[in-house]
C-alpha cells in the first residue's frame, strides 16, 4: 500500500520539475532548430527560449508564467486516496514552487487562488500492474490549448481529410500557440476519445517512434508540410513552426472518422514518477517508455 503522504510529496516534486525543466528531447529539437534557422528574428526567438530555459533551471523558477492547469495521468495499481493526495500536492506546489493560480469557475471566473476547482486537478486513470503507480503531470498552458480543434470527418474524406484538417488547424492557429509547437493528433474513437488521444499523444517524447509504421510515416509527412508554411517561431516567420507531430488512434464507428488536434507550445512541460509498493520512487521528465 502506497501511503497518500508519499503521493502528495511526489506530486509537489513532479510539478516543480515540470514547470522548471524542459524535457531533454524538446531541448535537443530546439537546439537543432536554432542551428537550422537562417532568419535572424527566428533564430533570436529560439536562442531566447533556450536561454530562458537554462536560467529557469538554474534558479529553479517556472520557465513560463502560465504554469497551466494541472492535468494528471495515473496508471498502474490505483489507490482510492490518490485523488485527495494529488489535490493536496497541487495546493502545496501552488504555494511552494510557486505556480500561478490559473483555475477559475468557468462562468463567474472566480479564482480560488489554489488551483483547485470542480474536476480540477483533472486525473486520467488507466489501470495497470499492481506493483507500482505511475503519475505524470502535464501543466498545460492556455495559449496552445485554446487552439484545440475537433472535426467529425465523413469516412469518404479519409486520410486526405485528416491531413487537410491538421494542416489547416496549425495554419489558422498561426502565432497564437507559441510556436514552435508539438502537434498532438487523435484519429478515430468518438469525439471525446479523439480529443483525449490527441492530448495523450503529446506525452510520447520526440525521440520515441510511433509503434504504428503508417502513423510514423504520417507524422513525418505532416511535420515537413507544417514547417513549409513559414509561420516560424512565435509566428514571426521561419523554418521551425513545429518540433514534432504525435499521432494516436483508436478504432471507430463504421460511419465516423473523428480527428482531433491538441497543440502544445514549445514549453512542452511534463514530469513523471513511478512509485513502488515499497516506497521507492523513480523520476523522469520523459516518462517511462
Amino acid at each position, binding site marked *: 500500500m502506497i501511503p497518500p503522504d508519499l503521493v502528495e510529496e511526489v506530486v509537489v516534486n513532479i510539478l516543480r520539475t515540470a514547470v522548471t525543466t524542459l524535457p531533454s528531447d524538446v531541448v535537443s529539437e530546439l537546439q537543432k532548430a536554432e542551428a537550422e534557422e537562417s532568419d535572424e528574428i527566428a533564430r533570436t526567438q529560439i536562442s531566447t527560449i533556450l536561454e530562458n530555459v537554462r536560467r529557469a533551471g538554474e534558479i529553479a523558477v517556472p520557465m513560463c*508564467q*502560465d*504554469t497551466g492547469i494541472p492535468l494528471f495521468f495515473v496508471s498502474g495499481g490505483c489507490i482510492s486516496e490518490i485523488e485527495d493526495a494529488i489535490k493536496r500536492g497541487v495546493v502545496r506546489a501552488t504555494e511552494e514552487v510557486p505556480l*500561478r493560480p490559473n483555475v477559475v469557475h468557468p462562468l463567474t471566473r472566480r479564482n480560488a487562488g489554489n488551483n483547485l476547482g470542480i474536476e480540477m486537478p483533472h486525473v486520467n486513470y488507466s489501470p495497470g500492474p499492481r506493483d507500482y503507480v505511475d503519475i505524470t503531470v502535464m501543466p498545460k498552458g492556455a495559449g496552445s490549448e485554446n487552439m484545440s480543434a475537433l472535426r467529425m470527418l465523413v469516412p469518404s474524406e479519409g486520410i486526405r481529410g485528416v*491531413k487537410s484538417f491538421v494542416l489547416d488547424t496549425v495554419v489558422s492557429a*498561426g502565432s497564437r500557440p507559441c510556436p514552435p509547437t508539438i502537434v498532438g493528433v487523435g484519429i478515430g474513437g468518438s469525439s471525446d476519445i479523439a480529443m483525449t488521444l490527441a492530448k495523450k499523444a503529446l506525452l510520447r517524447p520526440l525521440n520515441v517512434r510511433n509503434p504504428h509504421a503508417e502513423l510514423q510515416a504520417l507524422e513525418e509527412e505532416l511535420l515537413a508540410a507544417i514547417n*513549409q508554411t513559414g509561420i516560424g517561431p512565435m509566428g514571426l516567420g521561419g523554418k521551425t513552426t513545429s518540433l514534432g507531430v504525435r499521432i494516436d488512434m483508436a478504432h471507430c464507428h463504421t460511419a465516423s472518422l473523428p480527428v482531433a488536434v491538441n497543440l502544445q*507550445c514549445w514549453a512542452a512541460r511534463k514530469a513523471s514518477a513511478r512509485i513502488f509498493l515499497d516506497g521507492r520512487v523513480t523520476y523522469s521528465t520523459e516518462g517511462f517508455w
Partner: protein
Amino acid sequence: MRIKTPLSEEVVRSLKVGDVVHLDGVVYTGRDEVHMRALDMCDKGEKLPVDLNGAAIYHCGPIMRKKDDSWVLVAAGPTTSARMNSLEPRFIEGFGIRAVIGKGGMSQPTIDAMSKFGCVYLAITGGAAVLAAMGVTKVLGVEWLDLGMPEALWILEAGNLGPLIVGIDAHGDSLFKKVEEEVSRNLPFARRRLGIG
C-alpha cells in the same frame, strides 16, 4: 534603441516594423479582465485608478510571490494578444496608451487604431518568462486584485525590458501580417507535399 514611458506620439511614430527596442519606465499589465473592467468604467464615466496616458500595457499575467508586505515578481512572460482583439481599439482610443506589449500580434482593427492614434505593438518572446522578469526592476503596486493574480492590474517598473520587436508600427505595417501573406503563398506547396493540393 532604448525608449521610456510615458511615451510621446513622436517617439512612437518614429518606430518601424522590425525595429528592436528595450523599454524603461512604468508598465501596466492588462489582459482580458482589465480591458473589460476599464472599458466598462470608461462607459460609465468613472475614473481609473491609474493614468494610462502615454502608457505601455503588457498582455501579461505574472506569477507573484508575497514577501512580508510587498510583492516579488517570479515570472512574467506575455499572454496571447489576440484574445484582446475585440477590446484593444477602444482601449487605445479611450485611454491614450502608446505601446502594447504581447505575443502573437493583433488583428486589423487594432492595426488601424494604432495607426490612427499613434501606438505600437511590441512583441516579446512567448514563454520566456524568466528573461522577461529580469527586465522588471520593481513591483510598484497592484489594483483590482479581486480579479485574481493573473488578471489583476500590476504596476511594474521596467528596466531594459527586451529585446522587444516592433511587430505593428504606427503607420499600419504589421510583421505578423507579412508572415501571414507568406504563409498563404507557401500553403499550396505544403498541400501538394501532402498529396492534397
